[in-house]
């Protein structure tokens, strides 16, 4: 539209492999997909008149190019968006994870915490620490927060959860708190189900696939983990708790060839969403890696098929949400709406959430706890509620201040920078250095391929775009 010449603002770009698409993004989080291979060259070489007029208009509307007269304004808008985004990342933690016990009735193949047998002693978080835990949460959290009980198997120490919540209702009464229990469900009882209902608690239940897959990934030496899980799912239904429950699945190597079947299996459970995730390649013996592990490419070949199947299901008329795709979609289209801890810049470490371990030690992320179990390196500990409710993360401040994506090698020029996050503990654990070599990072490869896939589908598939939009509207 404009007759004035346009100039480039600082943007980021990436040619999406195996397509003709080039994605350009700005510090304001806007993106524009260029359809011709030559477009990016013409754009950068200031031959804007060679691009389709509508593309230049779109780039101009999104402040990736600008006329001379608006240039300073656009730059100030970029800086304002970036400042707002950083400010949000620096907000107080809104996620608090608590490990009531390390005991567990499962022997999951990919379990990264040194779980304890169900009758082990000294593996429970003692209820006498609740006051300190609540003091810590009260003083560090914002008005809205989520408290997640993790494990071990948290329901093996239900007594703690019950006491914690009754005290939290007093201590945190000024705040808007939601509770989640991450569980395998096998220890669900009538009493617990009623409590979950009365206290309006959400359940995040693990289910990895059909009986064979689930039992392969999540065996139990006490019972048939799949049958019992299904029994407990019936109990949830009887208690009208289906709407309280969401499901999470972890993928191991044997499932990689069964993407479609897996998607159909989850759909057959009559649930309305599934959160499917790759393994965190942390602390496995190499034999384990060979049996259950995979590269990011291998995982994404699987996941692409999986997501296609999910989209097909949605197109046929039933809403069935893939939460992993939705997280990425939210990062792209609704900046600020998701506070997913892995996807923050600066990193979500400490600032995104805290975890209180069964022994009272406080960590800045779930991965920090896992890494501590592996290395016992003291810098990871930021507090101990058996002693006090104080926090001290001075040891982690350098890691945090080195976690701005615009300043990280490998990230600073990446087109997905506005949507991605730094994961220093992942890189510390896998590469021995919090910054890491991104070209060799599972985290980076996975995120890059995810965004490649989502943008490609968004552009090339009407069905995918339609389904993504219905999810985004939720």
């Amino acid at each position, binding site marked *: 539209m*404009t007759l004035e010449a346009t100039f480039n603002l600082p943007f980021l770009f990436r040619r999406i492999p195996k397509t003709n698409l080039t994605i350009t993004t700005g510090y304001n*989080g*806007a993106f524009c997909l260029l359809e011709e291979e030559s477009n990016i060259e013409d754009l950068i070489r200031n031959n804007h008149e060679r691009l389709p007029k509508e593309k230049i208009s779109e780039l101009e*509307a999104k*402040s990736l190019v600008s006329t001379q007269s*608006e240039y300073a304004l656009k730059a100030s808008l970029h800086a304002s968006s970036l400042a707002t985004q950083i400010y949000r990342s620096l907000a107080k933690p809104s996620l608090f994870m608590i490990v009531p016990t390390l005991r567990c009735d499962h022997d999951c193949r990919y379990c990264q915490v040194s779980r304890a047998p169900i009758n082990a002693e000294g593996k429970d978080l003692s209820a006498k620490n609740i006051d300190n835990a609540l003091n810590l949460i009260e003083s560090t959290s914002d008005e809205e927060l989520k408290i997640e009980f993790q494990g071990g198997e948290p329901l093996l120490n239900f007594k703690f959860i019950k006491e914690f919540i009754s005290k939290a209702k007093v201590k945190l009464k000024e705040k808007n708190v939601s509770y989640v229990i991450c569980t395998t469900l096998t220890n669900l009882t009538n009493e617990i189900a009623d409590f979950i209902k009365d206290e309006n608690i959400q359940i995040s239940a693990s289910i990895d696939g059909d009986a064979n897959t689930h039992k392969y990934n999540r065996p139990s030496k006490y019972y048939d983990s799949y049958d019992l899980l299904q029994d407990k799912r019936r109990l949830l239904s009887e208690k009208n708790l289906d709407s309280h429950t969401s499901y999470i699945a972890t993928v191991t190597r044997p499932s990689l060839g069964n993407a479609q079947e897996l998607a159909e299996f989850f759909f057959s459970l009559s649930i309305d969403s599934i959160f499917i995730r790759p393994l965190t390649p942390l602390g496995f013996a190499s034999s384990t890696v060979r049996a259950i592990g995979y590269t990011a490419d291998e995982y994404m070949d699987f996941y692409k098929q999986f997501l296609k199947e999910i989209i097909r299901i949605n197109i046929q008329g039933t809403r069935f949400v893939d939460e992993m795709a939705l997280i990425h979609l939210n990062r792209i289209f609704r900046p600020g709406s998701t506070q997913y801890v892995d996807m923050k810049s600066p990193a979500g470490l400490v600032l995104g959430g805290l975890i209180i371990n069964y022994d009272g030690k406080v960590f800045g992320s779930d991965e920090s706890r896992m890494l501590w179990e592996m290395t016992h390196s003291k810098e990871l500990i930021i507090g101990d509620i058996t002693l006090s409710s104080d926090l001290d993360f001075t040891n982690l401040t350098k890691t945090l201040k080195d976690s701005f994506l615009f300043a990280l090698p490998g990230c600073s020029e990446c087109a997905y920078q506005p949507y991605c996050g730094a994961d220093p503990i992942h890189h510390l654990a896998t590469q021995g250095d919090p910054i890491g070599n991104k070209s060799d990072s599972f985290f980076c490869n996975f995120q890059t391929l995810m965004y490649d896939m989502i943008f490609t589908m968004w552009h090339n598939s009407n069905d995918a775009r339609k389904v993504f939009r219905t999810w985004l509207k939720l």
Partner: protein
Amino acid sequence: MAEAIRIDTAAIIDAQDWSGLYVLEKYNSANTDIPLLPILTKNPKKQNEYFILQPFSSEAIGSIHTLEQLDHFSPGDIVYIDGHHGKIRGILNAKANANTLLVTEQCDNFCKFCSQPPKTKNDVELYEKAALSILNYGRNDLTGISGGEPTLNKNAFRTFLQTLNSFNNTTPLHILTNGRGFSEKKFCTDVTETLGERFCLWGIPIYGYESQIHNYLVDADNAFIETVSGIRNLLGSGQAIEIRIVPVRDNLKSLPLIIDFIQSNLNQVTYVSIMNMEPKGLARKNFNSLFVPQHDQNSALLEAIEIAETHSLKIRLFNYALCQIDAYLHKYACKSISDWKNYYTDECNACTKKTECGGMFTSADGRFLEKPRAFI
């Protein structure tokens, strides 16, 4: 002009000498520390006669006669007697779906479709009248402030807010402004500090995604940059912003790009309103060059709404008749036309969606009316 669904004026006689603002029937508050308006009160013994009372007095100092019942007003309403035209008009009316006070007719934009073209004469007393009206009105309803450009006279605007504050008034305001004044950071800070805890929603127009279209439509150089900078500064002060877009022939195609612009650069705005043009004032004069029938706006509206939805940017349509637009758009269409300038045609009476529909502007009659098609 067609007849509105709520009449806001009544004819009066013997009022030549009594032009001015009045409170109807009674004071809502016994607050003697505010500058009080005189009262207009019904003569219980004589139909259609109203006495004029001084504050702190039950003695009438004059009277007027109405030619009709003042049923559309309620006790406590602020009314204006226009003695010259023999009319009484509601200023703050409890029964209205929206009350808006005009604080100036001066403006530094000259929008091609302005329903009320700006004037140049000094009218600073309109701020005073608006402040008096708000202070004397007992209710705390959201009240519109409009112009002209309310912030063009920066001193008067600040004084207006300070006056309300000084009497501890907390009326929430919806201020329609072109936002250009707020490109000056100091003014923005002054105003938002003066507002303090008062709720305020700023309705600010953006008619293009870049200077050229916007400046052309508002007929002012530099307007786009100043408006956008103003919005940016207001957002930085934590203010709630409503962006208002009027689609006309020149900018209809770029409507989706305007949404892209807002989403990419100003995504903290509270919501976006797409407002169909009212065929009044300059819009009536320039009708042929500006007008796009509502049904021809469908594809641009659908595309704009799709972008907004995807980004969860709140968006709504104002001044659209349901029979003229795509069914998908119905849930975004608001019954938005102020009742005193709103009507339905005979055709509409047969329509099953009449109660959900915004209907027409009273000014949209004759050749300006887009023929309704009743949903049966």
